[in-house]
């Protein structure tokens, strides 16, 4: 090991950064996890490369390689655009046609749908942008970020030479501070309880200091592409203004036309800090469903699809001319079981139902293998603090029967409520079939999403505790989150606003608190081990899988990449010659 290089990094690192370096060198983080964690807590790519190189030259056992760092994982260098994929010769010019969900709202502060996330992120930018690998964060409007020792204060150095599209005025720290104030006032779900009013301060025109409500090791994620509303808007931007009313961002694309019903067009922003984009523009076509998107691609009327599901897009999975972007993500379904009342109040009954799940079969039948096993807790394998040592629950019909017998339950019959969304009705049918093997009768009730959310999952009344009017059993969908805080806080914490299982466990609440305040890798992993163990044992929810986010483009284009939240990046995209 080249200690001189390692020591250089050690000397220049903050305690939090040092913790990550030591965790990697000690083999407690894989190379992949090291890059992810390192980029979150502001380690420069040069430092991470030096550490990895030093460890690679060591005779000691190498860090567990859960996957080598992708070549594209390097955070974008200041002042340069991400390099386009060099898989095929490219030409400059042209337009890409993009099929996207119709946005519900394009108000950067209040939007809540993937369609809105995708289109606003073409014009506006984040402090921490999406790395071309689609999973990590990279420098965006912030060039670097550094935490203090306990993760309560984060200092962001901003990119210089960035201008606003409308009048060419410079982007400054004041814009960031004003954006954060708007987000705090709007109750942004990621920043709530983390950043309070006045917490963001412009130290100088190119530096912002965030003083948090408590230590938080994941803060850069909360001001990144993974907290979709944190797009930086100008200082004088008024909350409630939509993209089409004031398309004044700093991004690579300028909004040219917008029709909320049909689509939008963007042209190149010649003043973009990242340089000249290879494409002249992008054309967005809005859809209400994924089926027509797939047909439009097959009919050569679109070149890219922002998101599709396996069931609608089966033909794309085998299309040799389609460049599939399958991003492993924390997207999942929760099968909630009421813990406070009804037939699932006993832990053994909930466990029994979970033991009937044939998870590999579900993944194969519903996703053609494009998903990962779930273990009845929300800590996804892709999180750096996931602990794989908690035993994976597998189908065990005998155990399910014995648990039911131990609980004194026979002929268990329940209604499984779900909404008409993607594969969920099929999942319900498969679960019904699997549960019947243990003598559990599930009657599947598929309802419109509005009825399902309003009447079964989380009815408005009674309001205290939230969701206490929920049905005793149902399936609800959860989108991707870069950290599990929202799942833990909203769906599982006592009196959480989406806690339809009415789960209340002091042990879990404490473990979640430990996780939120943990800033070092070891502390976060330790808290997650507790969380995984408690949830797997208590089983307030069944969680059979985490499925991949599917997007893609025609092979006539390269350099396109995507997050699992609907943001497709075209700044480096080009037509293949």
């Amino acid at each position, binding site marked *: 090991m080249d200690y001189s290089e390692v020591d250089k990094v050690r000397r220049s690192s903050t305690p939090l950064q040092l913790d990550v370096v030591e965790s990697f060198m000690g083999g407690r983080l894989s190379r992949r996890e090291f890059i992810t964690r390192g980029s979150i807590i502001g380690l420069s790519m040069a430092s991470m490369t030096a550490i990895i190189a030093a460890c690679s030259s060591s005779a000691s056992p190498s860090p567990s390689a859960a996957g080598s760092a992708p070549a594209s994982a390097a955070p974008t260098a200041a002042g340069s655009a991400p390099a386009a994929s060099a898989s095929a010769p490219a030409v400059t010019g042209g337009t890409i046609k993009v099929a996207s969900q119709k946005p519900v709202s394009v108000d950067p502060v209040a939007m809540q749908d993937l369609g809105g996330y995708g289109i606003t992120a073409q014009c506006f930018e984040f402090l921490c942008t999406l790395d071309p690998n689609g999973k990590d964060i990279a420098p965006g409007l912030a060039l670097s970020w550094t935490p203090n020792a306990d993760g309560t204060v984060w200092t962001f150095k901003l990119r210089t030479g960035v201008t606003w599209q409308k009048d060419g005025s410079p982007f400054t720290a004041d814009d960031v501070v004003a954006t954060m104030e708007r987000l705090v006032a709007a109750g942004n779900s990621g920043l709530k309880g983390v950043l309070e009013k006045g917490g963001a301060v412009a130290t100088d025109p190119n530096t912002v200091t965030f003083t948090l409500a408590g230590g938080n090791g994941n803060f850069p994620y909360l001001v990144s592409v993974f907290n979709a509303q944190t797009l930086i808007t100008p200082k004088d931007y008024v909350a409630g203004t939509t993209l089409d009313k004031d398309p004044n961002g700093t991004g690579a694309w300028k909004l040219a036309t917008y029709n909320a*019903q*049909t689509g939008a067009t963007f042209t190149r922003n010649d003043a973009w800090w990242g340089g000249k984009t290879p494409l002249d523009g992008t054309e967005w076509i809005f859809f209400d469903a994924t089926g027509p998107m797939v047909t439009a691609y097959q009919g050569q009327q679109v070149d890219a699809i922002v998101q599709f599901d396996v069931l609608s897009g089966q033909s794309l999975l085998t299309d040799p001319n389609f460049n599939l972007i399958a991003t492993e993500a924390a997207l999942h379904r929760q099968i909630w079981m009421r813990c406070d009342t009804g037939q699932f109040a006993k832990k053994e009954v909930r466990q029994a139902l979970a033991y009937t799940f044939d998870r590999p079969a579900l993944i194969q039948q519903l996703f053609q293998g494009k998903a990962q096993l779930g273990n009845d807790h929300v800590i996804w394998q892709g999180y750096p603090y996931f602990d794989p040592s908690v035993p994976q629950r597998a189908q065990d019909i005998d155990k399910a029967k014995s648990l039911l017998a131990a609980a004194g339950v026979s002929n268990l019959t329940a209604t499984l409520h779900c909404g008409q969304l993607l594969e969920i009705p099929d999942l319900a049918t498969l679960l019904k079939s699997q549960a019947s093997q243990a003598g559990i009768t599930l009657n599947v009730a598929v309802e419109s999403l509005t009825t399902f959310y309003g009447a079964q999952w989380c009815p408005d009344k009674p309001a205290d505790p939230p969701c206490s009017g929920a049905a005793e059993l149902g399936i609800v969908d959860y989108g991707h989150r870069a950290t599990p805080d929202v799942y833990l806080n909203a769906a599982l914490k006592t009196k959480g606003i989406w806690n339809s299982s009415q789960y209340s466990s002091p042990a879990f609440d404490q473990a979640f608190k430990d996780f939120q305040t943990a800033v070092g890798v070891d502390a976060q992993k330790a808290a997650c081990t507790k969380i995984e163990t408690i949830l797997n044992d208590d089983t307030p929810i069944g969680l059979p899988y985490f499925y991949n986010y599917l997007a893609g483009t025609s092979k006539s284009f390269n350099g396109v990449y995507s997050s699992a939240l609907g943001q497709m990046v075209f700044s480096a995209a080009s037509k293949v010659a």
Partner: protein
Amino acid sequence: MARFISRRLLLALITLWLLATIVFVIANVLPNDVGRTILGPFAPQESVDALNKRLGTDQPLIVQYVNAMKSVITFDYGDSYVTGQPVLPTLAAAIGRSAKLAGLALLITIPLAIIAGLYAARRRDRPSDRAIVLLGVTSSSIPEFVTGTILVVVVGVQLKLLPVLATPPPNADIPTQIRYLLMPATAMAIVYFGYIARMTRSGTIEVLQSDYARTATMKGLTTSQTMRRHVLRNALIPTVAVIAVQIGYLFGGIIAVEKIFNYNGMGQTMLFAAQQKDIPMLTAGAIVIGIVYMLATLAADMTIAWMNPRIRLEAER
């Protein structure tokens, strides 16, 4: 005729008021905190309250009802709760798109169906009549979404003859627009061909059996003279009534066809508004569709009155 039209218009206004009232009642029966719906579950209650105040959704129902009726009169529905876009331009664009699609579908269907119906009636019980009747029954029993899907797969994806999306590029010329709309319009025309052709056939047969048609033939008029002067005017009265109802239906949007061809007409716009609880858009959309229905019915009544003076005179009595 003026009295006839004014009576019809008065009835239309009463119907419009009833429609607006029913829509208001239905919209307000749904338990819904509009501010919360727009701002999301994490927004502070004070922000939700402020928005409800700004939108007027915190006011007593009777005040909201008066405001709703004012909106009907002034046709000012403000902005969409969900997208923030002005309601009327959005609806105007959607009704424009629906008008183009419905217009093309009717342009294909009406001449073909009337010619087929007349032809079949003239050759009653012959093989050609039976073939047209069978074709009509078959085409009207296949739903639009089936014919639409088959057309997309065969004509759009396999043969690549026509675009699979119905929305033409911005500023497209008329031939291009027709090219984009041809497949969905054909899917709709196939269904309505059957209705209109059978209605025309039965109306024509009835008239051909009447005494005056027989007299016209016996007094020496040629077949085409008899058809033009005596048969068509009377035979097409029920057909005109059916077409009027179909116009309203088509303008209201054929959601399945719009979905398959990703066409943002009234159907998709209204469905989206309903899913998002966008009450201003939903209310204004229902009123607009109601007006289209009334105008279509009025036009049909006037056409029928023009075709048959007895109806006009009865109505004026």
